[in-house]
């Protein structure tokens, strides 16, 4: 599907804060490579990523933490072009999904 997927207007860029991107993707062994490869290839900065299957396992949910000063508009557009990405939602403020995980990422 080339048509623009369920998309939301990008919130204004915030140089200090981080943004959280919520993706719904087809669940198969190559999908993480597609997402991570896109970020590295296009020099987009990914700070954190979480992925788990949802529902009956045909789809996965991916949460990505990105720096607020990234090219948010380009990141969302390029992700939406991926065949396996069903939807991409950019959350306007720091989303609690990563905050809740903080205790697992303590230490030096």
């Amino acid at each position, binding site marked *: 599907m080339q048509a*623009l997927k369920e998309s939301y207007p990008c919130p204004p860029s915030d140089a200090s804060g981080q943004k959280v991107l919520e993706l719904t993707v087809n669940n198969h*062994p*190559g999908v993480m490579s597609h997402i991570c490869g896109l970020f590295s290839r296009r020099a987009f900065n990914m700070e954190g990523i979480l992925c788990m299957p949802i529902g009956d396992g045909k789809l996965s949910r991916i949460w990505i933490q990105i720096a607020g000063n990234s090219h948010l508009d*380009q990141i969302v*557009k390029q992700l*939406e072009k991926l*065949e396996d990405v069903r939807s991409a939602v950019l959350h306007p403020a720091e989303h609690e999904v990563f905050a809740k995980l903080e205790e697992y990422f303590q230490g030096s």
Partner: protein
Amino acid sequence: MDKMNGAQLTIKLLERFGVDIIAGIPGGSNLPLYDALSHSTTIRHVLARHEQGAGFIAQGMARSSGRPAVCFATSGPGATNVMTALADAKLDSIPIICITGQVPQSLIGTDAFQEIDTYGMSIPITKHNFLVRSARELLEVIPAAFRIAGEGRPGPVLIDIPKDVQLEMIEFADWPAMPQRECVKHYRKQDILQAAAMINAAERPILYLGGGIRHGNAHDAAIRLAEKNNLPTTMTLLGLGSMPTNHPLALGMLGMHAARYTNLILEECDLLLVAGARFDDRATGKIAEFCPGAKVIHIDIDPGEINKLRTAHLQLVGDAGSVLAELLPQVESKNRQDWLNRMAFLKKENPFIMPGADDPCMPYGLIRQIAALADHETLIATDVGKHQMWVAQAYPFCRPRQLLTSGGLGTMGFGLPAAIGASLAHPQKTVVCFSGDGSILMNIQELATAVEQRANVKIFVLDNTSLGLVRQQQNLFFGKQYFASEYQHHVDFVTIARGFGMQAFALGASDDPVATLTKAMQTQGPCLVHVPIGRNEEVYPMVPPGAANKEMIGGENHASA
């Protein structure tokens, strides 16, 4: 119920989707596919001599016809060899489908013989790719590959099929239909009206056409819009032919090797109407200084191209042909006399200088002579280098899909196999391949394929015994330190071509070059013409890489100075 194995299913699906030629090379992991192909009565297999050649033969078919074309390769080295052709197709948005064999699933991940992670390796250089895990998946994957390759912004798709999947028997009730391509349209009527208002209000507008015009069959709409509103029109390398070179509004190619007047008039425009182009650095030069005073209306089918490099004041995401056709009734008929006078003045003061245009043994003269001998149906393929830029500057293109050239990736070795592919897709047409002594050697093995297929390909090797554009940059920007760009050993291309079983002509030894060129163009089947070119014949004007387009070197009009 139909019952067959995965390989037979693959071939049957390709037949049903209208594939009539497949270029490729067999190997251990795709032998079931080849066995199934051997029983096909509608698909002709073209045996390439290198998988990169097979990939570019598919590209030649796709670029000249607009339809997705298919190539085959085996696992491991077959797959790595075809990658360059896939990357090339990605950067120029060419719809090809590459089907690779893979080791059986039980061996995947064990470093088996000829095993490579084809799926992982092809992710960044394909529009999409698949690793097929069961024969039943083929019923979805192959139709999807055709849809994805051609839908929206076209591109290459790779399907990796393990050998056990090729051999797996399945039964199924219904054949899948060719999926419908979704129409991309993300603009409203008011966007069209606003664009028309901007065009009508502009005093110095320019239309800038890219490769998307060809994909969208948008050239008629573009020409009608340009004519109605009198829009001077420039084209990217891949856009050449969208408007005929001899059209009064045509400014030719823009950018690094544009005519001086083209880059100079772009400096002055106040509105840039961009259709199916992506602000590539070879076209724009230093992007921050490109068309400094212009507002931008950007028409593209790929939303990711909007605001990627240049902010658009207005975006129209959709098919270029539809957008331009909708714009046409909304723009006013204008004569724009002042702007066209300015264009004529800049053209007169800064004309495109073609040294040796009357000498068929000089680059421009050769290209002009071939154009005079060719007809409007002749297809032109190029390799990559000086000859490519001379052709882009000097060949009088009259329609889209006439020029087949590697623009985005700039792949030396593209020309010969692409020309063979174009000839296979259009057996009634002559295909001219302009190449260089550097480029031709990068896929010279395909001369055998050309002879075997009796492809109607006329190859002109412009031999300057060097990697010409590299040498030119060393001349201009590296203190004439000609390192690794001049060949010490000179290859006898005429003897080589004859060794492949092809007719060959040495223009340097000809008493009557025009007669020799005429004879070559009239030869049945493939032939090669060797054309010696001086090392110092440079491509001018030239914008230094990274500089603004107004900073051109060479090509000055000394006649009027």
